[in-house]
């Protein structure tokens, strides 16, 4: 992978980030309601003060100047003040982001660990019994929305069996090993619900990707040289078949975020997903904007990482 490829990818990410920021700002600018709406109807505030305030906060500027003001303050990390939590939006989001990334990362890891072996085994013997069973479970898995599986898991493991707690506690009283055990018990359900949903979708991609490669001539060559079937599969097929899977994992992230919002809400995990919902319900606009912006930035960053990995794994990409 050459340096110019990396630089080109980085430069290509800038217009997308700008484009997304334009979309967000447009939505915000088109929305009804005025940040000073309450002030306007307040008879105790004289009109001259209102106008001065509007001018001071730049509400009367042309729209493109407002956009650049907004963009620069977003890039500076100056995201405003949360009315509901009484603290800076940036601080608030950073506090919550760690939890979200930990849950998302573990779930995605689980999805990959489940999907890749099953997908490979299913593709190794297409239309066998194992393939059909795996396919059926994959269909059921991604037809079960996370909000329903989450409730089913709570119903089974928390209410009926009483094995796991269903309310997430961020300040556990235990210490040492007991803390880890309690932490494990309270995160296992959200991670499994999210991870198995992602895994179900991923199994089909892995399977079709392996099937695409397994038909190629070089695989037949490897077989005819007398290399064992197992070795052909692992050394020749899988290494190439997994390259597109890297991209799929990254491209699915916007969907994963959707699932993360839902699972955080069901299990009351204090991440940015549940923060988004609670701030929407309390009309806390700066937080809503901040969280949406963070989600957008995360998607772009992960797409970038996927592209770079793609270039690293597949040297042909670089010379395009």
């Amino acid at each position, binding site marked *: 992978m050459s340096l110019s490829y990396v630089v080109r990818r980085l430069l290509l990410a800038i*217009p*997308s980030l700008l*484009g*997304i920021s334009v*979309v*967000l700002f447009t*939505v*915000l600018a*088109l*929305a*009804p*309601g005025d940040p000073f709406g309450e002030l306007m109807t307040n008879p105790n505030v004289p009109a001259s003060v209102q106008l001065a305030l509007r001018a001071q906060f730049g509400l009367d500027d042309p729209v493109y100047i407002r956009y650049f003001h907004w963009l620069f303050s977003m890039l500076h990390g100056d995201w405003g003040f949360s009315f509901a939590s009484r603290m800076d939006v940036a601080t608030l989001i950073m506090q919550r982001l760690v939890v979200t990334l930990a849950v998302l990362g573990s779930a995605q890891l689980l999805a990959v660990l489940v999907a890749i072996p099953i997908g490979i085994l299913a593709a190794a013997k297409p239309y066998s019994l194992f393939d059909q069973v795996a396919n059926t479970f994959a*269909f*059921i898995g*991604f*037809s*079960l*929305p996370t*909000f*329903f599986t989450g*409730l*089913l898991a*709570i*119903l089974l493991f928390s*209410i009926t069996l009483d094995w796991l707690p269903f309310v997430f506690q961020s300040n556990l009283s235990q210490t040492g090993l007991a803390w880890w055990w309690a932490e494990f018990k309270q995160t296992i359900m959200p991670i499994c619900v999210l991870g198995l949903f992602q895994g179900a979708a991923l199994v089909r991609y892995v399977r079709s990707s392996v099937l695409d490669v397994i038909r190629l001539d070089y695989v037949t060559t490897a077989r005819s040289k007398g290399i064992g079937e197992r070795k052909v599969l692992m050394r020749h097929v899988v290494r190439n078949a997994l390259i597109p899977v890297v991209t799929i994992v990254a*491209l699915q992230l*916007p*969907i994963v*975020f*959707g699932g993360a*919002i*839902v699972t955080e*809400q*069901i299990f009351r995990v204090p991440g940015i997903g549940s923060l*988004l*919902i609670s701030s*929407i*319900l309390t009309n806390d606009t700066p937080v*809503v*904007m901040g*969280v*949406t912006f963070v*989600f*957008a930035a*995360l*998607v*772009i960053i992960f*797409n970038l990482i996927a592209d770079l990995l793609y270039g690293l794994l597949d040297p042909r990409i670089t010379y395009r």
Partner: protein
Amino acid sequence: MASSTPASLTADAAPVLPAPVLAPHVSPTREAWRRFRRHKLAVFSLVVLTLIAIGVVFGPWLWPVSISDIDFSAMLQGPSWAHPFGTDDLGQDLLARIIYGGRISLGVGLAAMFVAVFVGVTIGAISGMASARVDAALMWLTDMFLALPQLPLLLLIIYLFRDQLKMLLGAQGGVFVMIVVVIGGLRWMPLTRLVRAQFLSLREKEFVEAARALGASRMRLMMRHILPNALGPVIVAGSIEVANAIIAESTLSFLGLGFPPDIPSWGRILFDAKDQLDNAPHWALFSGSAIFLTVLTINYIGDGLRDALDPRRVL
């Protein structure tokens, strides 16, 4: 594919006889149906989904119970003869509410699919026919929309615009139109890429060149020759899109930001049920299973349609 070779070369020499070796001409629809039938689960799913649709459309006549009759003597009851699906925390009959919710959920799914297909096919067709510069710009736009975080943006738009639309179109209509437009408007990108790819390959085919040589305008080429041939994958993707839209609507309602409580869509019923999981699990189970069953059957039908409509697939 059945080939029907017209005997035009020999037509002058001898009267045309039906050649016994040729397979009888099969219409594309019939051929697709023949392939679809081989996918047993898809056929079964089609039957189940049809039953759900019939139940949802004609249900209110078969089960004429009001969705909003409050009965405090029958709160949170499990299934019984009087209430086959049980009751909720206000003693409202759940079967009636799920029948009503199915109309909303299926309606949103279909309508959002049509929005997504319309936008996706339009942009994809323009992109596939237009100059390289327009194509690049449209594809950049598509890629950017693909990178948008869908659910956060959906929530943001609904958060910002719901009051205005409610005033404009009334509570029920406003929420319905907004949810359909927003879900459809954020899901057209895969269809665009699909249609563009089809157009790029089809526009170089001989039959299109023949039509062009005969003087067909670009519009006619697009509407009469290319688009009908590009529809197969669109139908497949569109069917899956219905399932996605139903999940998106249920997610919104489940987060409390979709339909209001007096319009019980399936997701909304689940949202109301989630705080009573320990007392009344049937409440969540029936509404959740309705979503699951519908989405699963639609996904299987989509899989069957892929078998049926993908000409590269040999069965």
